[in-house]
Structure formats: C-alpha cells, structure tokens
C-alpha cells in the first residue's frame, strides 16, 4: 500500500496540475521533488514550493487560466460534485492529498455556501509516517483494554498523523475492529469512499460524515471496539462521545491545545475531561521544528505517565 514518494509525485500529484505547472514541476530533480510538502499556486505569482522547513519560487508566473485548468482537473470538470467540499475550503484527491482553495466565497445566512471565484490553491502532499504511534501505544493500553484517549497539540505537530498511525496499529497489531469518522478526509484520505492512507485492515471509515452523527452511526452499524475521530471541540461532539462511551466502545480523538491546562480552559473539553470521559492524554509539541511527543498523562487528574526529558 505504501507508495514511494517519487511514485506519489509522478502518479498522484503531477497529473492533477494544469499543463504549464506540470511541465515546470516535472523539471525538478528527484531529490528536490522528494522534499516537497506543499505546492502553492497563486495567480500573478510564480509557483511556491515548501518542504523541510525551506521554500523556493519556481517560474513561470501563473495566470488565472493555469489555476482554472488545475481546478478543472481536480474537480473532474464537475463543480456540482464538490460544492460541499469547496464550501469547506478544500478538495481531497486520490492518494489522500488535500488541496486547499481560497478565493471569493458566497455567503447565505451567515454561512459559506460556495467558492464563487477561485483565487489560490495549496496542494498539501499527504505523507504517512508508519511507526510514529509505536512508542505511544503501550501507554494507552491498561489491563488489556485500549484507554479512551485525547491527543492534544498545537496545529502542525502531527496530531492527525499520530492518530492515523494509532488507528493502524490498533487495527493491524492488536486486531481490534476500529471505526473512523473522517469528517474532513484527513485521517484516512479517502477518495470515492476508499481510504488512500493505511488505516489498518480492520478499520471502517465514514468519509465526509459530520463527527457527531458519524460516531453514533458507526457504533450502531459497524460494531467497532474502538472509534476514532479528529478534532473534537463543540457541544454536539461531546454528546456523541458520551453516547459512544455509554455503549462501551473505546474512543481516540484529538483537540487543538498546547497542553492539558490549555485544554481545560475550553468548556466542552473541560466537561469531557472532568467528567472522566478520557483515561489518557497524549501531548505533542515541536522540538527544534520537528513534531515530537511531549508526554502522556493519566486523566482526569493529569499525572504524568511519561514525560519527555528536556
């Protein structure tokens, strides 16, 4: 299942770009292409490549037409099939890569209803890091059961990557049935309903489904032993989680927060943590620019089970 980065670049990234952009990127050397994490396309600007903490401009200067061609390919000439995703600001393509979209949005009743005119695009190349969950998983198992776990981290520290790998490990190594609610197609990177990233052989994914409804649907229909969902934070999530826990299903989820104290400032998270919904908290951080594990705490009281030195 795991493709080499070069194959991902050739088979999944380049074909999705407009002709002029594609030929510019095809000229990159393999070593350079390997490092690219993000391709940013803006009308009137050259192509911007980012990766490994560096960035580089690449000619030619892009036109609105280049962006439109790329969007035509991305959407398969079918805006109607992607209206919802675009209103959320991204499209997921084969391989689980996400293309962020900015431009002029249309608003009705205070809600974004459509991306009316295209501005810039941001290709984020999905990369899997199999094994990042391995040092964490033992801390999450207590008396042979997977603990209800909350992963806390600031943006860009690998929350989703860690959650994905934990799901894969629980599914493949522990042999449990896992259900994933993937509202924004980030966790499994599904394309037409099929996960493109490895989430394990015993995993079922509800793609594009609202978290609160998805959690309950999964428990009702797929009989999971563990469910996973990314980025909880609103009241509806909390109600759904309580329902899932009442059914005796273990939960893995994530939230934006620097640490436990930060998480406790948020009413919904506080209620869930203080209410004893979670038994483990995993805290991530950045260490010299590289995502790293800060520690694992026991919840609700927050005693460190493991703490990174330094």
């Amino acid at each position, binding site marked *: 299942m795991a493709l080499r980065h070069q194959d991902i670049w050739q088979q999944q990234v380049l074909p999705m770009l407009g002709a002029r952009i594609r030929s510019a990127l095809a000229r990159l050397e393999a070593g350079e292409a390997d490092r690219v994490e993000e391709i940013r396309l803006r009308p009137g600007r050259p192509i911007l490549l980012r990766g490994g903490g560096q960035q580089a401009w690449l000619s030619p200067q892009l036109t609105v037409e280049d962006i439109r061609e790329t969007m035509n390919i991305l959407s398969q000439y079918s805006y109607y*099939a992607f209206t919802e995703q675009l209103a959320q600001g991204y499209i997921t393509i084969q391989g689980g890569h996400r293309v962020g979209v900015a431009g002029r949005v249309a608003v009705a009743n205070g809600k974004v209803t459509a991306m009316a005119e295209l501005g810039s695009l941001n290709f984020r190349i999905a990369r899997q890091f199999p094994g990042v969950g391995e040092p964490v998983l033992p801390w999450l198992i207590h008396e042979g059961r997977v603990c209800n776990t909350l992963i806390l981290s600031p943006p860009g520290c690998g929350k989703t990557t860690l959650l994905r790998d934990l799901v894969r490990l629980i599914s493949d190594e522990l042999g449990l049935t896992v259900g994933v609610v993937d509202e924004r197609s980030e966790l499994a990177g599904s394309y037409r309903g099929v996960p493109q990233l490895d989430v394990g052989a015993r995993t079922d994914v509800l793609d594009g489904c609202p978290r609160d409804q998805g959690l309950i649907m999964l428990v009702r229909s797929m009989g999971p032993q563990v469910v996973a969902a990314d980025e909880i934070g609103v009241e509806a999530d909390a109600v759904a989680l309580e329902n899932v826990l009442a059914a005796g299903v273990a939960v893995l989820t994530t939230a934006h927060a620097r640490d436990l104290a930060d998480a406790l400032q948020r009413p919904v998270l506080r209620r869930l943590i203080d209410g004893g919904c979670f038994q483990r908290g995993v805290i991530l951080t950045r260490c010299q620019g590289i995502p790293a594990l800060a520690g694992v705490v026991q919840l609700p009281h927050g005693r460190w089970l493991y703490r990174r030195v330094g």
Partner: protein
Amino acid sequence: MLRLLAAAMIVLSASSLGFAMAETFRCRPQQLRQLQFALTVLSGEIRFRQTPLPQALAAVAKATPMPVGQLFADLEAALAGADGRGLSWAWQQVKPRGLALAPADYALLENLMQVLGAGDVVQQGRQLDLHLEQLRHLELEAERSRIANEKIWRYLGVFSGLALVLILL
C-alpha cells in the same frame, strides 16, 4: 437496350437521393427523443448521485442507443484528453457520426456544454430541465417537418428521376 439501362440508372440514383433526404427527416425526431433520454439519464446522475462528469457521461453513453450514445462516448473520450481545458473545448473536438441532427440541435447542445459542470446540483438540474424542454420543442418542430417533407422527398426523388429521363429521351 443501352438507353433503357441508362434511364433505369438515372431513376434509381435520383430516387435514392430523395430517399436519403427523406431518411434524415425521418431520423431527426427519433434522435432528438434519444437525446432527451440521454439528458434525463445525465440529470439523474448529477442530481441524485452527484457523479462527476467523466463517469456520468460514460453512464449516459452506455444507456443511450447508438448513434446518439456514441456522441457521449466521444465526448467522454475528448474530456479525458482535455487536460483542464474544459467541457466546451472537449465538445469542439467531438465529430458527430451518423447523426441526422440539424444545426439548431447542435447549437443547443453546445449551449449546454457551456454550463454543464459549472454550477451546484440545483442549478445543474434546472439547466438540464431547461435544455430538455428546448429539446422537446425541437422534436415537435422536427416531427412537423418530417410529416411535411418525408414523403415529398421520396416522391421528388423518383419523379425528378423520371422527369430527367423524359427530357433526355
């Protein structure tokens, strides 16, 4: 003897020309009906399954009888090679084969290609409804001209052949 053969040839070719003209008048309403069927299938694919155009066009091509179905198969193939240039561009690459459609019919289809894929599901549904209705009008008109012209062209072919023979004799 030779004269008789030549006369028969003239009558035969004139009437086959007439029959060919009559055939286009006969086929056009039928093909317009098939087009309406095709757009109904497309509308279903878009409205209820939100199928992206490449797969939706393939489904239409499969469901619609030839030669109208071929038009959609060709469009799908052209779209696969469009490289982002859009549906209108792909439509321009399609060379209709074996169709009896009139310029007005093609103009309507071209119009549809300008809007297809470029709106949300509700909008696309409305556009397709609109085009379906116009196709119905075209079909009625085609039916009228079939009734008016089909027999005339057949007779015209035969009789003009005969007339020519008489003149040459």
